[in-house]
């Protein structure tokens, strides 16, 4: 085993060192140009994709070579248990990936920590760990795809897809990556046997193989539906084509602000509606959009956006440290550290990571606005301190950065829209009290847009709830309220928007397999802290869709029973497959056919 391990290391040592050198060179160049620790999520995802591709290609090459019949027999024809051969190969490969992928990342982190004043937190030390987990997972997925059954082993890639789809952050993301790695390792071990075409025998092994396969089939079916939708778009009658259907949510999403307000007012019974229509035509309509689904979480591996801002007058850059929960500064001219800056003049820890989000009218030139989960702070360049300027109630979270509405500022949380007077921002340094607090009429996760005009007595505000309506996570509607200057809110109109898509299309993610749909939701939300910004008002599934799903389940079960009649299967396994088909539906049926179809006939 040790010899095989060493031989495998020697076999790839030049490639490994060449990759590691090139990798280090590229990261070294990039880190001179930008702070790699402060890049947005897209950059980290792109780099992770390169690591995954590297592991994938390596696995395909290495195990693809071994898979050839003679080579495979030669490999396994050793006085060692098969699993020890597999471990030797995999361990060597992990070590190679460690050197090629993780080590350069670690070297860059060490350089940044020791040679610069840039922030290197615990989360940045976890990046090499994440890199090796991703690369190894991809390697194992490739190995499983090569060695597993030709009809189904490609499904291991779905576990790589989970890494992309998961909403987990920080340690949660690492756990997901570790879980995927362990699952893929188990799949590789199961596939690592003399008869590469044999199906898994034990129930546990069958579940380990079948579950990702069924999820992959479910995702493939979703892609088929998406393909149908593409054909629909090509055909030209899709709601997203040119002119959307009148009165529907697509039209509302695309409408010019004045048109949307006007359309909502058209169903109002208020006597002022006609006057407001005139005002809408003459006014500037302001817009507020929901921007965040999640806010920065402590120790998350990536960034929503770079957590830094510059004080140009002083020539300083301030970067948020998740470890210290404070900003740390360094001079842009020579990179020397200039200290630490916490919340308020007491230099306290920020309660959650503070994201720099620009400035506000009334701020001095180099002042910056910093946003935690429910507090806004002003970085005051003059005093080089942060001042608390706005605080949401403790249970609320910001859903957007503040936006200008005339002379006022609109602040959106998951519960309310706040209007703050511009004077409050510029005249003092105290905590700002909102002049108006307008409760949101619906769930923040469904909110697409807010359109408003100024009235002499307050505001006329339209809330449009259409987000995720295309996959039935809300029954779309528009609600208009008048907010008086004294804060009183009066309903003006509620317009129910047409669905635009047929019901079967909106619920396709569900009826294709309710169980897989739930599993997908559960898997992507595993180790994820609950986010109030994702709260939705999900309508109940219509009866017709329930019947459709039930019919597919019964059909799948019947077909499993029918197809299994000619196969060499125990009665209990036949029944288990039938039960799985009844529970899971089409993915179970197809997975049964892929795993057992075409062989083992009695």
């Amino acid at each position, binding site marked *: 085993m040790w010899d095989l391990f060493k031989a495998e290391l020697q076999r790839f040592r030049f490639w490994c060192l060449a990759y590691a050198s090139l990798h280090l060179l590229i990261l070294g160049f990039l880190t001179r140009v930008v702070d790699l620790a402060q890049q947005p999520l897209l950059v980290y995802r792109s780099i992770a994709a390169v690591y995954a591709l590297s592991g994938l290609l390596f696995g395909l090459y290495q195990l693809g070579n071994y898979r050839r019949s003679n080579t495979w027999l030669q490999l396994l024809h050793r006085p060692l248990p098969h699993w020890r051969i597999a471990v030797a190969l995999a361990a060597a490969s992990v070590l190679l990936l460690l050197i090629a992928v993780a080590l350069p990342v670690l070297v860059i982190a060490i350089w940044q920590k020791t040679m610069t004043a840039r922030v290197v937190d615990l989360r940045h030390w976890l990046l090499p760990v994440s890199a090796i987990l991703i690369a190894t997972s991809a390697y194992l997925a490739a190995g499983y795809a090569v060695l597993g059954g030709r009809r189904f082993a490609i499904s291991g890639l779905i576990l790589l897809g989970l890494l992309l789809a998961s909403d987990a952050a920080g340690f949660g993301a690492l756990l997901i990556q570790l879980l995927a790695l362990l699952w893929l390792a188990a799949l590789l071990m199961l596939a690592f046997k003399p008869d590469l075409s044999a199906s898994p025998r034990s129930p546990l092994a069958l579940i380990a193989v079948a579950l990702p396969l069924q999820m992959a089939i479910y995702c493939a079916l979703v892609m088929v539906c998406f393909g149908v939708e593409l054909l629909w778009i090509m055909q030209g009658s899709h709601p997203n084509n040119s002119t959307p259907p009148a009165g529907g949510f697509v039209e509302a999403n695309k409408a010019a602000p004045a048109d949307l307000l006007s359309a909502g007012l058209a169903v109002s019974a208020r006597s002022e509606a006609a006057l407001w229509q*005139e005002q809408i035509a*003459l006014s*500037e309509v302001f817009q507020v959009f929901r921007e965040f689904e999640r806010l920065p979480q402590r120790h998350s591996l990536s960034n929503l956006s770079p957590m830094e801002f510059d004080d140009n007058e002083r020539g300083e850059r301030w970067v948020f440290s998740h470890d210290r929960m404070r900003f740390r500064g360094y001079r842009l001219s020579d990179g020397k550290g200039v200290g630490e800056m916490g919340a308020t003049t007491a230099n306290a820890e920020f309660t959650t990571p503070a994201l720099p989000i620009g400035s506000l009218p*009334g701020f001095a030139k180099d002042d910056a606005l910093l946003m935690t989960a429910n507090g806004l702070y002003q970085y005051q360049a003059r005093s080089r301190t942060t001042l608390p300027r706005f605080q949401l109630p403790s249970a609320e979270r910001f859903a957007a950065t503040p936006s200008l509405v005339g002379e006022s500022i609109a602040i959106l949380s998951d519960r309310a829209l706040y209007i703050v007077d511009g004077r*409050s921002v510029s*005249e003092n340094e105290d905590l700002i009290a909102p002049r108006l607090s307008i409760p949101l009429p619906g769930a923040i996760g469904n909110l697409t847009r807010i359109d408003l*005009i100024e009235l002499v007595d307050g505001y006329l505000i339209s809330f449009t709830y259409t987000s995720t309506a295309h996959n039935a996570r809300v029954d779309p509607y528009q609600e208009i309220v008048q907010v008086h200057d004294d804060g009183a809110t009066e309903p003006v109109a509620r317009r129910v928007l047409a669905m635009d898509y047929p019901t079967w299309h909106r619920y396709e993610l569900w009826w294709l397999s309710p169980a897989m749909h739930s599993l997908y939701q559960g898997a992507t939300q595993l180790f994820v802290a609950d986010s109030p910004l994702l709260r939705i008002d999900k309508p109940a599934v219509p009866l017709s869709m329930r019947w459709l799903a039930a019919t597919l389940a019964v059909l799948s079960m019947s077909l499993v029973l029918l197809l299994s009649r000619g196969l060499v299967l125990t009665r209990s396994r036949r029944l288990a497959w039938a039960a799985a088909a009844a529970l899971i539906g089409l993915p179970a049926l197809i997975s049964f056919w892929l795993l057992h179809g075409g062989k083992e006939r009695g």
Partner: protein
Amino acid sequence: MKSTSTLLLCLLIAALVPAEGRGAAQTSDEFSLAVAQERARAPAPRLDRSALLVQDSVSDSVRAPDGSSIAYFRVVGSARSVWLLDTDDGSQRRLLQSTEAQRLLWTRDSQWLLMESPRQLFALNLAQSAGSRMLSALDGPSTRRLLAVDPVRPDAVVLLEGPRPDAVAAERWRLLRIDVRGREEVLHSSARRITGFAFEQNGRLAYLARLDGEGIGVYRLDDERALHRLLRCKPLLRCSLLPLANQQNELLILGDAAGDPSRLLRMDRNGALHLVHVDPRGAADIEEIAVDPFDGTPLLASHASTRPASHGLGPSTRAHLARIEQVLGARSLSIQPGGSDQAAWLIAERASALQGTRWHLYQPRSKTLHRILADPPLQQRSLRSTDWIAESSLARKIAFDWTASDGMRLHGQVMLPPGRDPAALPLIAQIHGGPWNHVRPGYESHTQLLVNRGYIVFEPDFRGSTGHGFGYLIAARGDYGNGRVQQDIVDGVRALLAKGIGDSQRVGISGASFGGYSSLLGVSFEPDLFKVAVALVPPTDFGWDLRWVSRSSEALELSKFLSFEDWLRLVDLDLADPATTLRLQQQSPLANSQRLRRPVLLIAGGKDCRVPVRGVIEYAAKLKRQGADITLLIDPEAGHSGGGPLAREARNYLVERSLHRHLGGDAADPPDAQLASYIERTLRLRGSVRSD
């Protein structure tokens, strides 16, 4: 024969009528004679709309204390460069190609030029290339404001540092001296806002003014820097200290502390006040005091109400001023005198019929005057060099006083188209903004355009206006709805019509800001008198607008020492009093839109920080719903001042068209393509005034 008799009539009138600005109480005969004088002038040629919209290519000239140089801006559009004129040989050289500075000042030693911008105070060393530096940042929540050039040190300035623009307590205010090497010295620190200071001749800070409650207290500082109150000026009264005491180290105060109108006072060592100067007519506030640049002695006082006037404060300056007026005629003069007969004076000459500013150097020793910096102006829109319009083609402002229906004597100004019969001409009441402001006697392109198109323009300083004394200012008692102030304007128009000025069937009302509000009130409540209104950036409910402004950062700009709300309360506009706001609301154009029967031209700016466009829009929407003849232009980028040159010209064009259609003045020249495009883009309601 006819021209000869006209000439004789002119000569006769010129002999009898005090020239514009000469101080004397107005009588009915004086006004009639002034009208006759205008009637006797040759009719003005039709002026091109854009010819009236020009900008000075030289501005803000300041004389070095030693008289050797004059620093000034050259202006092209919004770009400014800094230049220096040598007063000996007349040579000019550019110091800076571009600057953000808004104001120039000299240090006392004439070696440093100070440039003040909204962001910073910069000192430019004119003696050598090294040493120039920023003296202080001026922006940020903790602001610093330049109060004065240090009147005793050769190369320093005095600044006031405050925690915030509106702060009145809780944090300390500091009076700072900063010299050109950047050294700072705290002269005084106070928990109350410092509003003024004065040094003794020996350089000791001896007097201080600061907020005392809502008024201003004047204090003497003893050798231990302890404060002893000498005077308490009641709320709203002005109490400005001249920064240097006189030769006897007596404090000089400009303000209303000893009566109406504002005057220059001397406080003796016992605290008694003595009059130094007041308007001889007893009518106008002092606008400006010119002092000796070295010992601070007040030399000249000028007034800028309906009758501009300057007065020498000593025999010598009186003689020099007489000589200057002999050459220039009666003008609105801004004079920067020298400290001795050797040093030349810098004189800025302005007048209602004089486009722009003319700069002169006066040599006291030879009593000669010669013009300097005589660069031609720039056309505002094209920035091309153009010629000044001849004074003979422009109208002059005539002071007009009238008695309001409650007996109060009020002041205003009238402009008549030269050489035309005033009884047959349409009349426009042009209402000033503010309302705490007054009509200046200088050139105004908009009113000149109206007069050139055949309208008589009446500019009333209704009660509540500034410039006519404290009593005049507070006489409005907050009655800014359809009440006393509006009645003053109506009374003024009727008084003019009664004198045969204007055709009573062709009267319009126009104005910007508060003037726009008043115009809307005029056509809403006096439709028989006013046949058309032109309202630029008008608040449509004054009380609501003040409340709105109080929430915006603009409030910090408007209130000077007190908070905006406190200041309003002192002028009887208590925003916390529901009765006040309800009265203003009930009398507002917005609440009385259904009364409107006359055509209205509304122009507003999308970025107006003083009059929110939403008030104008709601008003316009109401009028449109009821089918009124309403034209609405909104420039989304324009602020309260109305936008750039294109916006100004578009406004003038639409006003011309509207007034021509409804009052029958001269027709407007069609707009060029750029102007037409702008109007098409910004005109939201077309009413009866359509762009071509």
